[in-house]
């Protein structure tokens, strides 16, 4: 009799492998949620992955050599990418025309630029979308080639890991556990499917009845154990990193701290835009100290790291700087741009000590007059941005002399914004500070006009905007709001009315520009927390952004549209002609902070920081702080200890009950004592065959245990008692059982190794035998 086994055909196996690879790729690309916002990027990725899977399956079906598998994927993907991204340049909708490649490359360039200027998660502009689709396509093809073509699904983990590592490379928090679990599930699924195919390929299943046709392998047992093993490994992978040291910072930076250095002596600086990090800083789980300073100012100033004056619709960014090396701090600083001579100011001295903060930009109070800092620090005249291409601010100590300007609403009301035109009265290139991107939404412009309808002067308009934004009934301060400072983010912010300093500052700056007032966004720090008179500490959570508006004759004036919950009261000069000379905002009379004057100028920031601390409990990361053990570890340890210890506890309870002379008959007590003796001997590894009589047992135990005289006597007494209890018509008095048993037990234990004794204590063999006995009986 010949049997034909139904086996899975290679075609369906190819399909299954391809689909598994595609699913793994898709699940892994969920990690992109950490770097891309919205859902617009999902469908291109799905399409690209599925097309790559189609290519993989087709290549396998055609039995192409594995090296040609990527080609099959490419042949299918090129038309798809063409149709998706450069439909205009396509011939017959899908075939890439000569312009398509150029168009696509241009798209990639714009995407690269977008990535440079976007915070994560970034809005998926077409360029970013193209880069994402291309990257995922490359990963998908690689996965298909390795998993299907070369039949090495394990190796396909490498491209998947690369995809999974993208958020870790971009965003400070990495991809998070959920995308990892998804990716791991996809990967494990791919491995299991491969193993399933191998098993099914091996042969048919053995049949459950003789001479029946062999059924094909269903392998649900294999899949069930795949679930178990995979789940166990996955749980470990999610839980275990919590106990690894140094995962928040990495040991390498600690080792190399302060040693990295200096590029070639160029005066062009290209840094990741500082505005992109504010939200991350605000949401840091621990509020690390960044710098501290002492000042002789009565009220400390905001520390400005950099001014962002270029707005392209997506993001605020610092102008690309080209500064002659002569413009360095050791040559002194010029007069602040636009500052009129009629504005009075008092010089203030500040000594700043930077800690771990490693920036290329130097945090300074504005306007600085003189700075003594080691290293070559260059400044940009219109913005007063100070930067170095050779070193960072890490561990830098420097002295600053800055001006504390006396500003009054009256003086400001009299000043006019210079209006559009090339630096009408100042000779400054202010056009940049008025420029709005093409396609700037009219709705925002209209809204700005409505808000400022009642205002006459530019100053009044600015004050109206600030008051409108600070109105707690209208806007809510929320550091978990979506990030972004572009027009789309501003529009979203104006609808949701939730945001944090970046949105408040950029909204005000954009609205001011739309009203013809030159505006830019400053990034830096709140004054921080006062730790001693004149001494302050600035922490991660003090990262801040605020707008600066320009008024002729006065120069750049900071405003504070971020609500009071974050910043305290607004600067006095911005409070609509409240009268009296007020100092510049740096010198904000933060005394009016909600926590009251006693908490010092930085009370608001100081009050907020602990609150964030409470929200983000750093204790989940043991080893960082000495504050107590991590509770999951404690639970696990106690559970484990309970598991290990519970048999011993049970055993000692049993012993206490047996030896307790609680009112039972003498015969019973003797029997119980004898049973206890037996179990003690068993615990310690002495043989105790049930066939022996008590006397034989006593002799044997006495011989094997090498008992000394008192123990031997106790043993003799016990065996006599049990004999009497079992056979004598009258049992007679029964005394000293507990002592005798204890004596014998101690003597027996002495001959045993420490390990055996420990086992007898923790995992008594007699319990185990007891259980086995029950099972046998059952």
């Amino acid at each position: 009799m010949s049997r034909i086994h139904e086996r899975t055909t290679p075609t369906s196996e190819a399909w299954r492998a391809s689909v598994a690879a595609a699913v793994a790729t898709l699940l892994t690309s969920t990690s992109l949620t950490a770097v891309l916002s919205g859902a617009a990027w999902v469908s291109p990725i799905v399409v690209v992955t599925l097309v790559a899977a189609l290519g993989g399956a087709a290549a396998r079906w055609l039995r192409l050599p594995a090296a040609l598998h990527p080609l099959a994927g490419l042949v299918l993907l090129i038309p798809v990418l063409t149709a998706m991204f450069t439909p205009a340049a396509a011939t017959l909708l899908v075939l890439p025309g000569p312009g398509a490649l150029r168009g696509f490359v241009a798209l990639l360039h714009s995407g690269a630029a977008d990535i440079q200027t976007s915070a994560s998660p970034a809005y998926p502009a077409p360029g970013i979308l193209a880069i994402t689709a291309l990257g995922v396509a490359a990963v998908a093809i690689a996965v298909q080639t390795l998993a299907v073509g070369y039949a090495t699904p394990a190796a396909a983990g490498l491209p998947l890991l690369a995809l999974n590592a993208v958020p870790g490379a971009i965003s400070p928090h990495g991809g998070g556990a959920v995308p990892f679990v998804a990716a791991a599930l996809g990967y494990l699924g791919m491995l299991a499917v491969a193993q399933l195919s191998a098993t099914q390929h091996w042969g048919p299943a053995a049949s459950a009845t003789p001479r029946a046709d062999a059924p094909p392998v269903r392998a649900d047992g294999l899949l069930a154990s795949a679930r178990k093993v995979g789940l166990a490994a996955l749980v470990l992978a999610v839980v275990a990193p919590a106990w690894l040291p140094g995962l928040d910072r990495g040991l390498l930076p600690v080792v190399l701290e302060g040693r990295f250095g200096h590029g070639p002596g160029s005066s062009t600086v290209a840094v990741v835009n500082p505005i992109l990090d504010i939200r991350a800083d605000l949401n840091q789980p621990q509020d690390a100290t960044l710098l501290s300073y002492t000042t002789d100012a009565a009220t400390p100033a905001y520390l400005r790291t950099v001014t962002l004056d270029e707005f392209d619709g997506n993001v605020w960014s610092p102008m690309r700087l080209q500064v002659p090396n002569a413009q360095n701090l050791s040559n002194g600083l010029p007069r602040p741009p636009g500052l009129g001579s009629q504005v009075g100011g008092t010089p203030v001295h500040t000594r700043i000590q930077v800690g771990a903060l490693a920036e290329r930009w130097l945090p300074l109070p504005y306007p600085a007059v003189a700075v003594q800092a080691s290293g070559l620090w260059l400044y940009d005249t219109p913005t007063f941005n100070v930067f170095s291409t050779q070193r960072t601010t890490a561990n830098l100590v420097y002295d600053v002399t800055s001006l504390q300007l006396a500003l009054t609403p009256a003086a400001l009301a009299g000043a006019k914004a210079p209006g559009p035109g090339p630096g009408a009265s100042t000779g400054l290139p202010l056009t940049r500070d008025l420029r709005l991107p093409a396609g700037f939404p009219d709705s925002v412009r209209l809204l700005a006009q409505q808000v400022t309808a009642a205002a006459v002067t530019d100053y009044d308009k600015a004050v109206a905007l600030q008051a409108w934004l600070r109105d707690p009934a209208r806007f809510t301060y929320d550091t978990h709001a979506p990030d972004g400072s572009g027009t789309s983010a501003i529009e979203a912010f104006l609808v949701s009315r939730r945001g944090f300093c970046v949105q408040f500052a950029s909204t005000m700056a954009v609205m001011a520009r739309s009203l013809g007032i030159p505006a830019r966004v400053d990034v830096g720090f709140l004054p921080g927390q006062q730790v001693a008179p004149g001494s302050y500490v600035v922490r991660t959570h003090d990262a801040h952004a605020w707008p600066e508006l320009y008024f002729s004759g006065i120069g750049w004036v900071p405003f504070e549209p971020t609500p009071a919950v974050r910043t305290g009261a607004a600067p006095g000069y911005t409070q609509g002609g409240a009268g009296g000379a007020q100092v510049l905002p740096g010198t904000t009379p933060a005394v009016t902070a909600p926590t009251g004057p006693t908490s010092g100028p930085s009370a608001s920031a100081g009050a907020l920081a602990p609150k964030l601390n409470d929200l983000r409990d750093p204790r989940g990361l043991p080893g960082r702080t000495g504050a107590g053990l991590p509770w999951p570890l404690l639970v696990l340890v106690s559970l484990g200890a309970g598991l290990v210890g519970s048999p011993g506890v049970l055993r000692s309870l049993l012993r206490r009950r047996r030896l307790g002379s609680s009112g039972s008959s003498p015969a019973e007590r003797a029997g119980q004592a004898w049973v206890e003796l037996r179990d003690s001997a068993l615990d310690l590894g002495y043989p105790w065959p049930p066939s022996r009589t008590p006397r034989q047992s006593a002799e044997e135990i006495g011989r094997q245990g090498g008992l000394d005289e008192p123990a031997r006597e106790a043993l003799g007494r016990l065996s006599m008692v049990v004999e009497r209890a079992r056979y004598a018509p009258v049992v007679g008095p029964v005394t000293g059982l507990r002592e005798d048993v204890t004596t014998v037990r101690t003597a027996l234990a002495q001959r045993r190794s420490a390990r055996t004794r420990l086992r007898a204590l923790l995992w008594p063999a007699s319990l185990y035998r007891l259980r086995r006995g029950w099972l046998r009986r059952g």
Partner: protein
Amino acid sequence: MRAAVHSLTLRGRAFLAAGLSALACAVLLGQRDLARAGVLLVALPLVSAAATARARCLLSCRRHVEPGRMPAGTTGEVLVEVENLSRLVSGVRLQDAVPAPLGRSPRFVLDRFEHGARRYLTYPLHPGTRGRYQLGPLRLTVSDPFGMCELTRTLSATDSLIVTPPHEPLPALHLGGDWAGDANSPARAVAAAGEDDVATREYRHGDELRRVHWPATARRGELMVRREERPWQSRASVLVDSRAGAHLGAGAASSFEFAVSAAASIGVHLIRRRYAVRLLDAEGARHAMTAWESTGASAAAEGWLLDELAVIETSPRPDLDPALHLLRRGGGDGLVVVVAGSLDSDTVSDLARARHGSTTALAVLLDTDSWAGRDGTALARSHADVLSSTGWRVVVASRTDQLGALWARLGGRTARVGPTPVAGAGPLP
């Protein structure tokens, strides 16, 4: 634990190494994502190995081969019964070792195989070449669902299988050698009427004590023994020319295999016709005893003959002397059948002398040249003539001949065959 670690496949070890280095990098760089991946890569092989080692996978197996003796070219079936003595196992791959001439080694998968359950593997055998073969052992591979580790075990139980040369039924002929007796065999036992149905004789020195017939002894007053009741036998000696030099061709297509097949067909034919058959080859008798191996048509005799022919091999001996000696010593009783390869004139004359008296002697002379693609019928026919002249009945067989037809030609003439017998090529009268 050590076994578990040793069971790791290349993939498992690679995972372990990659995971450890990923963990190291993760700690150095502070990459939590990488740390997760590292832990996963480390945990997966370890958890897999632990789970596999815990399953242990103890199986027992029994094999039933049907039929236990099968001719080459036919199809048989093997049933393997596997019982699980350990806890539930899944995804176990089995392969029964089957020698290449019997067909492919069958592979099966055991999935969700509970403790105490039985599973059955059935697979066919297509034996192509005669011989004695060993089936098994059953090799099982236990692996985890991710291909991280693999344990290979071998169940020691093996079974042997005998593949006999192919043989075919032959037409019935009138042959001599009937009722030939052994020289020392007594007269045929005749059952007398009445109760005394045991033929007895007096005790002779050398008789076995257990043959003593005590009632007759008591009656006669002297030791009486039961007569050996031995039926008359028709006897036949089948000689296979197993000299390596006498054959051409290789493997299943060699003239030697043809000779073995012919001997098998003839031997089975004779046994079924109640001949006692002994098998001779160039080295002499194919058995330790020179005794006649069978009495009448018994399956055991047939089995013995076929088993012998299943494992018969060529010998380097240049002549057939031991076999011819045995033939001559037989005293000329019984039928003699010789299947001879290429002969030289000395062997032919020896062979001619081996027949004496009234012995019926049949010879199948193989034209071995035809197995080498040449025509050597002339030589074979000249040998056939020599044999015929001494009273042999001879056919010359070439590669394409059917044994049944040859056998019929051997019986073409009844009884004695004169000097113009069936000498192969010539048209029969």
